[in-house]
């Protein structure tokens, strides 16, 4: 009897325990309103108006204030934002959006379809180079046939169009504030008015940006957080200290140096994730000026690729935060193809390629200009120099600051440099610009500055962009990737993995493929 009762007691206890744990688990999933989330904006954004500046920190802070029509999941699935529904005609020429109801700007004015039309047709066309290209190449008209409805009529199909409504590409701006003004000098840029879950309360330059909850936010009961602070801490070591001491709860990829990531990730009560960058998927590459001998010879570029151990680069220079890139299109981007020319690390093959091309390396001095974004890039330059010198070339590293770098790039005054590109989910949005011959424009950085020309590639990239069906697009892009890798239009090094580090108490921090740029209306703090 005693035994039984003990057993029963034990069982009852277990059931009770399970119930309590279940309750706790349930509690852990139920958002708790209130609280302050502390983050870091690094470097300090010049302005918060996302339509005029699309730098990382601007999007990070501005993404809480401004919103776009759509957003994208971690698998690049298209998700609603200011548009609650959308429809694409069968011919791929008409895109209809239905907007959310009851959305208000931070100044209390109603958000309407007219704001979207103004943003697409006027504001971004003038102020946003990426949208201008899309609008002038593909968009015939933007109209609002009825309240809450917006229709984009295209001149020709554009397979990436549904991916062009991410925050950095299409932030919706208020017509009543910007219409008829000089956008850049409009005083409203200092007091941003958006539709997002948080409003600007105070910006003490050099110290912090303080956002507070938008009580009139269009999602009922959200956001959960009361306040956001974005601290300005210019020194990387001090930023690591700030996290360690609990002054900030979140570190965004790049906030601290790679070696600090490892250390901070091991602290108690700390979580890390590399999710939330799928839309951007930055790919790092070595840009070789194809106008200059001997880099004009494809076998020399192939030799360079074989001389670089990309596993080594990821592991030792970038602390394992990435993976070797095999194609111009990142593995997380639409239409990534595996059927490409591969360049395993092989010095003997590299030397053989140079011999085959009849190039005498000792006769050439190559200038290598590191991207001026910090010490890791300098180390990458040192590694690349060492490897290329093993082929017999002389390499001189030329240090510059960001202004000098973009000038040299614009004027094509370089032999080799590094860069990385955001992909924006689709090759037509973030990839093609580096290979289209129409994008060889002196005086502009970040295009086809290496001077790569191949009419067949132009044709394929444009065919992929204009394809109506995904199958046709995939076919064209696969072929383009094959040619580009074979000709080493750029020397793809690796896919960057940015790590978000946060305290365990911060819930729902990364929910979409734009990560921390997403409106933090779902984020909450466990007690």
């Amino acid at each position: 009897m005693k035994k039984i009762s003990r057993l029963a007691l034990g069982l009852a206890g277990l059931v009770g325990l399970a119930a309590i744990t279940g309750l706790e688990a349930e509690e852990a999933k139920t958002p708790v309103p209130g609280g302050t989330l502390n983050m870091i904006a690094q470097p300090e954004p010049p302005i918060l108006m996302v339509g005029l500046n699309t730098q990382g920190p601007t999007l990070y802070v501005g993404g809480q204030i401004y919103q776009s029509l759509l957003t994208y999941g971690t698998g690049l699935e298209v998700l609603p934002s200011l548009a609650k529904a959308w429809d694409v005609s069968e011919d791929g020429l008409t895109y209809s959006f239905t907007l959310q109801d009851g959305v208000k700007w931070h100044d209390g004015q109603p958000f309407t379809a007219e704001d979207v039309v103004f943003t697409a047709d006027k504001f971004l066309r003038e102020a946003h180079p990426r949208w201008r290209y899309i609008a002038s190449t593909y968009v015939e008209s933007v109209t609002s046939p009825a309240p809450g409805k917006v229709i984009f009529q295209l001149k020709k199909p554009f397979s990436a169009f549904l991916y062009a409504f991410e925050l950095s590409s299409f932030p919706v701006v208020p017509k009543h504030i910007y219409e008829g003004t000089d956008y850049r000098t409009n005083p409203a840029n200092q007091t941003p008015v958006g539709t997002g879950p948080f409003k600007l309360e105070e910006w003490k330059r050099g110290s912090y940006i303080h956002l507070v909850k938008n009580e009139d936010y269009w999602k009922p009961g959200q956001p959960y957080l009361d306040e956001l602070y974005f601290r300005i801490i210019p020194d990387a070591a001090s930023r690591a200290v700030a996290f360690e001491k609990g002054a900030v709860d979140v570190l965004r990829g790049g906030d601290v140096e790679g070696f600090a990531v490892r250390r901070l990730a091991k602290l108690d009560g700390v979580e890390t994730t590399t999710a939330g960058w799928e839309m951007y998927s930055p790919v790092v590459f070595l840009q070789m000026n194809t106008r200059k001998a001997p880099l004009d010879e494809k076998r020399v570029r192939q030799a360079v690729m074989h001389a670089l151990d990309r596993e080594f680069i990821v592991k030792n220079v970038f602390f394992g935060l990435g993976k070797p890139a095999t194609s111009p299109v990142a593995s997380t981007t639409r239409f990534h193809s595996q059927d490409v020319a591969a360049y395993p690390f092989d010095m003997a093959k590299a030397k053989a390629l140079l011999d085959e091309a009849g190039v005498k390396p000792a006769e050439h001095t190559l200038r290598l200009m590191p991207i001026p974004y910090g010490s890791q890039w300098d180390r990458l330059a040192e590694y690349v120099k060492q490897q290329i010198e093993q082929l017999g070339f002389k390499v001189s590293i030329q240090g510059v600051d960001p202004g000098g770098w973009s000038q040299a790039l614009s004027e094509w005054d370089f032999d080799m440099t590094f860069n990385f590109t955001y992909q924006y989910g689709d090759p037509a949005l973030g990839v093609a610009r580096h290979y289209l011959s129409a994008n060889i424009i002196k005086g502009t950085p970040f295009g086809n500055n290496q001077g790569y020309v191949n009419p067949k590639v132009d044709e394929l990239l444009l065919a992929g962009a204009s394809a109506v069906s995904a199958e046709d697009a995939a076919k064209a892009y696969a072929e383009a990737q094959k040619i580009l890798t074979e000709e080493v239009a750029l020397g793809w090094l690796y896919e960057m993995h940015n790590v978000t580090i946060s305290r365990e108490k911060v819930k729902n921090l990364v929910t979409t493929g734009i990560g921390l740029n997403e409106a933090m209306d779902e984020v909450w703090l466990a007690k």
Partner: protein
Amino acid sequence: MKTLDFLFQRLVKAAFVVLGVVILNFLLIHLAPGDPAAVMAGEAGAGDEKFIAQLRAQFGLDQPLWWQLLTYLKSVLTGDLGFSYRNNVPVAALIMERLPATLLLTASAFLFSLVLGVLLGVLAAYKRGKLADSLIMTGALVFYATPLFWVALMAVLVFSIHLDWLPPFDMESIGADYTGWARFADIAYHLVLPTVTLGLFFTALYTRLTRASMLEVMSLDFVKTARAKGVPKARIIRRHVLRNAVLPVFTFASIQAGQLVGGAVLTETVFAWPGIGRLMFDALLQRDYPVLLGVFLVTAAVVVTVNLVADLLYRIVDPRIEAAG
């Protein structure tokens, strides 16, 4: 009257110095490769030629350089420091927001280093050859030779992380919204590490300088006379030696004011101090010409003013200077 004449002359000279600084900086800045339009186009990720041309026209960068210089000088003379391309705000507003933090930091560091440096220098001279002298001079040598950023990092490591005595960064507790005395105390608390870090190098400098100067004066005849008259040693040091010995330290300190601003860039970076030094550094990287020129102009004006005040102080400390005209 003589002092007023002197002041007027010095003010005119100061104005020319500041003007010269502005013109020189304007030309130097434009020698550097790249311009704000190119940098901003880079940040847009896909700057096309139309975008860049549009920005250049808006910023007036499509005009000839001499014309840009004249336009700038004209607006400066009318009290307008221009408009920041990147921050979309008037430069004067940007600078005025940040200047107080730098003035607070540099003035604290200046006072800290001068007072402590002179005290230690006097002590070392007074105890010449003794243990105290050796200790002080070794310390001075160490801090004179150690780079500022290293001192800053070590200070954070020891006093903020290990001992948890002092805040590692910021000018005040963010989000605390203190007012009155509580705010004053909060800022003072945050000021300790940056001040000491920035001030240590200069403390070392003034210690060495004061000691050397003291020893030189102590070997002069009038000191021997005083001693022979039986004046107590402490009184000789205080009344006779220090007053003479401190003059070169003063001269040096006023010259060092400019260097202090340079050191502030680093200190402000490590301690996230929201001052003008960091503003200058960011503006330099982004080629934000109007902000850069504005900061140079204001810092030049501050340095020139400090020198002017030092000159006036001299005449009080050492009346011989006024007599000599």
